C-alpha cells in the first residue's frame, strides 16, 4: 500500500490529523489500540456508535472494514467554512435513518456508524481525509462526500486502491467524473446529474422564449461541470452561452458580486443559471436585483436552497424582491409533500432523532433546518445504503458490494421513482424537480410560462 501523503504542515487544525509515512506504518498498532477512538474529529453515529472494542479494531486492521458489531462508513464533507450547511444537512438526514436502523437492532445485528472528517469543501484536506479513512481507519466504504472539486480529486485514489474494493457511495455532487470512465466504476450515485439538472433548466427556459442564457459559476470542477451541462443543453437548441462570469470557491455572502453582475448585464441575458454554493449564489442574486438585472436566476440542487433563501430573506423588509426570480432545481421531491411515503418517514425520523453534527467538528455557528432538500437527500442516501448493506448478508465483505448493489432493481425507496443499478447504470435516480419561492419557502414550479414567460 502507498504509505505517504506528504507533510503534516498544512493541517491547520481544521480537519482530522493527516496521514504520514510514520503514521501509516504505525496504523496497524494504532488501530489495535487507540487511533480509532482518539482522533479529535472522530464520530460514529450520535455517540453511541462511537465505542468499540480492541477486537473490533483488529478486524479493521485486517481490512474487512466491518466487525460483528459495527459497519463503519467514512465521510469527508464540509462542516466548516461558507459551505458548512451542505455537509451538515446531508449528515443530519443520513444519521436520522442510521439512528433509526441502529435503534432497531442494526443490520444483521451490526450498527452502522459514520466516521467523519471535515474538509471545509477544499480538495487537499478531502484527499488527506480519504487516505486516513482508507489506510488508518480502514472503513468499509466511503459515503456521503460533498462537492465536485473534492470528489474529483479523490477518484484517482479509489482507482489506485481498486483492489481494496472501497467504493464511494452517493456523493453530494452531480458532476460527470464519477459517472464516466475512467473513474465511474469506483462510485455509485443516487441523485440525478448536473447534466440532467442543467438540461431541465435550459429546456424549460428555452421553451418559454428565454434563449439567451448566461452562466454564473464557481471557477472549479463543479462550476465547469455545470457550465458544460448548460453548454451542451443549449447546443441541442442551436444556442450558445450568452455570457459567463465566475467567482472563487469559498466566497461569502458578505462579498460583492457586482463585477460579475455587470459582466452579465453586458450580454443582456434572458436568464442566468448559477452553478455555485449558497453563499456566493445568494450574493449574486442580491447584487443582480440591486443592479437591475431582473431575469430568472436559476440554481442547481447543490446550492443548498434553504440556506440560500435564508441569506436572501433574513432581515430584509422586502424579501420577495430578492427571491421572486429564483428557480431552484432539486434532485429529490419536496420535503413538504407528505403524501410521499419516504418524505413522511424522513420527517418522522428527523423529528424523533434531530441529529446534530458532533461538537468536535463545529467551528462556526450553524443553525440547521428542521427539514431541507439536503437532509432529505442524505436520508435517501442512507436508506439505500442500508438496503445495500442488508443485501450483503450476515458476513458483509467489500468484495460483495458490487453484486449487492447490482441486485437492486426497481427498488422502492418510498418516492415515486424506483431505483435500479447495473454495471451500466451507476446512478439510481433520474428525476429533476423545479422549485420557486412562495411565501418564504420553496414550492414546486408547475407553470414556467405563467411565472417567467
Amino acid at each position, binding site marked *: 500500500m502507498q504509505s505517504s501523503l506528504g507533510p503534516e504542515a498544512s493541517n491547520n487544525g481544521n480537519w482530522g490529523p493527516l496521514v504520514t509515512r510514520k503514521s501509516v506504518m504505525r496504523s496497524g498498532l494504532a488501530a489495535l489500540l487507540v487511533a480509532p477512538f482518539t482522533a479529535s474529529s472522530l464520530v460514529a453515529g450520535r455517540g453511541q456508535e462511537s465505542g468499540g472494542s480492541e477486537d473490533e479494531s483488529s478486524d479493521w486492521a485486517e481490512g474487512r472494514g466491518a466487525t460483528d458489531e459495527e459497519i463503519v462508513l467514512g465521510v469527508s464533507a464540509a462542516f466548516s467554512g461558507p459551505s458548512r450547511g451542505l455537509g451538515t444537512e446531508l449528515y443530519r438526514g443520513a444519521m436520522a435513518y442510521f439512528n433509526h436502523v441502529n435503534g432497531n437492532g442494526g443490520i444483521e445485528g451490526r450498527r452502522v456508524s459514520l466516521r467523519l472528517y471535515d474538509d471545509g469543501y477544499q*480538495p487537499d484536506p478531502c484527499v488527506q481525509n480519504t487516505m486516513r479513512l482508507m489506510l488508518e481507519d480502514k472503513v468499509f466504504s466511503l459515503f456521503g462526500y460533498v462537492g465536485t472539486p473534492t470528489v*474529483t480529486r479523490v477518484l484517482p485514489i479509489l482507482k489506485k486502491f481498486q483492489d481494496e474494493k472501497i467504493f464511494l457511495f452517493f456523493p453530494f455532487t452531480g458532476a460527470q467524473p464519477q459517472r464516466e470512465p475512467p473513474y465511474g466504476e469506483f462510485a455509485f450515485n443516487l441523485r440525478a446529474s448536473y447534466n440532467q439538472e442543467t438540461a431541465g433548466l435550459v429546456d424549460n427556459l428555452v421553451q418559454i422564449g428565454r434563449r439567451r442564457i448566461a452562466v454564473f459559476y464557481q*471557477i472549479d*470542477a463543479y462550476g465547469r461541470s455545470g457550465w*458544460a451541462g448548460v453548454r451542451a443543453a443549449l447546443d441541442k437548441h442551436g444556442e450558445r452561452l450568452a455570457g459567463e*462570469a*465566475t*467567482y472563487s470557491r469559498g466566497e461569502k455572502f458578505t462579498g460583492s458580486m457586482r463585477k460579475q453582475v455587470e459582466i452579465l448585464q453586458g450580454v443582456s441575458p434572458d436568464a442566468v443559471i448559477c452553478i455555485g454554493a449558497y453563499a456566493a449564489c445568494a450574493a449574486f442574486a442580491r447584487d443582480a436585483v440591486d443592479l437591475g438585472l431582473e431575469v430568472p436566476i436559476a440554481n442547481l440542487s447543490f446550492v443548498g436552497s434553504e440556506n440560500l433563501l435564508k441569506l436572501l430573506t433574513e432581515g430584509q423588509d422586502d424579501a420577495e424582491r430578492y427571491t421572486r426570480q429564483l428557480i431552484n432545481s432539486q434532485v429529490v421531491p419536496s420535503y413538504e409533500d407528505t403524501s410521499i411515503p419516504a418524505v413522511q418517514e424522513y420527517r418522522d425520523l428527523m423529528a424523533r432523532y434531530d441529529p446534530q453534527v458532533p461538537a468536535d467538528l463545529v467551528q462556526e455557528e450553524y443553525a440547521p433546518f428542521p427539514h431541507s432538500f439536503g437532509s432529505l437527500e442524505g436520508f435517501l442516501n442512507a436508506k439505500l445504503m442500508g438496503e445495500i448493506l442488508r443485501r450483503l448478508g450476515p458476513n458483509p465483505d467489500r468484495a460483495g458490494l458490487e453484486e449487492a448493489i447490482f441486485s437492486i432493481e426497481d427498488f422502492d425507496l418510498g418516492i415515486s421513482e424506483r431505483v435500479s443499478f447495473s454495471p451500466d447504470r451507476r446512478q439510481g435516480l433520474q428525476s429533476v424537480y423545479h422549485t420557486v419561492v412562495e411565501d418564504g419557502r420553496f414550492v414546486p414550479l408547475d407553470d414556467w410560462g405563467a411565472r417567467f414567460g
Partner: protein
Amino acid sequence: MRIRRLFKWTRFGIFAVFGLIVLSTSILCIYTVDTELSAEYEVNTQNIAKTIADSSAGILLNQNLATLQSLVDQFLEVQGIRYIYITSETGEFLAHTFVPGIPEEILESEHSNTAPVERSLPGMGDFIEVGSPILAGVAGTVHVGMDLDVVALKIQRAIGQQVYLISVMLLIAVLASIWFVNLAAKPLGELLAYAVELAKDGENDELGERDLLARDDEVGHLARLFLHVSRQGGGRGLPANTSGTE
C-alpha cells in the same frame, strides 16, 4: 601619525579597486541572474503548459471538462502562475481560471498562438504568457500566464542576496586593508619619531638602547643606519619646525 599619509592613496586605491569589483560583479550578476532566471521561468512555464497539454488530451477527447478544470486548478498552485486557460481548436474557452471573467485582451487574442507573449491585464498585472498545443493543435491549446511581478521579485531577491554578499566581502576587505596599513605604518611612525629624536639629541646614550634597533627587518636596519649617521655627523640638530609628530 604623519607616516599614515604615505598610505592614504594606498587605502583609497584598495577601496576604489574593490568598489570597482563590486560594481562590475553586481552589474554582471544582475544581468546574468535576470537573463537566466527570466529564461528559466519562461522555460518552466512552457514545460507546465506542455504538461497540461499532454495530460489534457485524453480528457478533452472525452469531453470531461470538470476533470480538465480540476487539472488546471492544481497547476494554478505552482508559484508564479496566475492564470491558465484552455481553448478548443475553434477558439472556445473550455477551462480557465479567471475571476470575475475572461479579460477582453485574452478574448480577442489569437488562441492558437503558442509563442511567448507579454500581457498587461487591467486589474491583474503584467504577465508572460506561453502556449502549448494539444495534439499538435487539433484538440486545442493550453495557455499559461506567469506573473512578471513575481518573477521580478524573485530576480530582485536573488540579485539582492548576491550583491549583499559581495558588499559584505568589500567591507571586510577594506577593514582588513586598513588594519594591514596600520600594521605597516606603526613601526614606520616609531622610526620617524626615533629619527627626530636623533636629530635633536644624537649624543644621548639612551637612544642607542631602543628596542627598535633590535629589529631584524627594514625598520631595524634603518634605525641602526640613522643612529650610525647621527653619531658620525656629530649630532647636528634638525630645523626647529620638524616636530616629527602630527
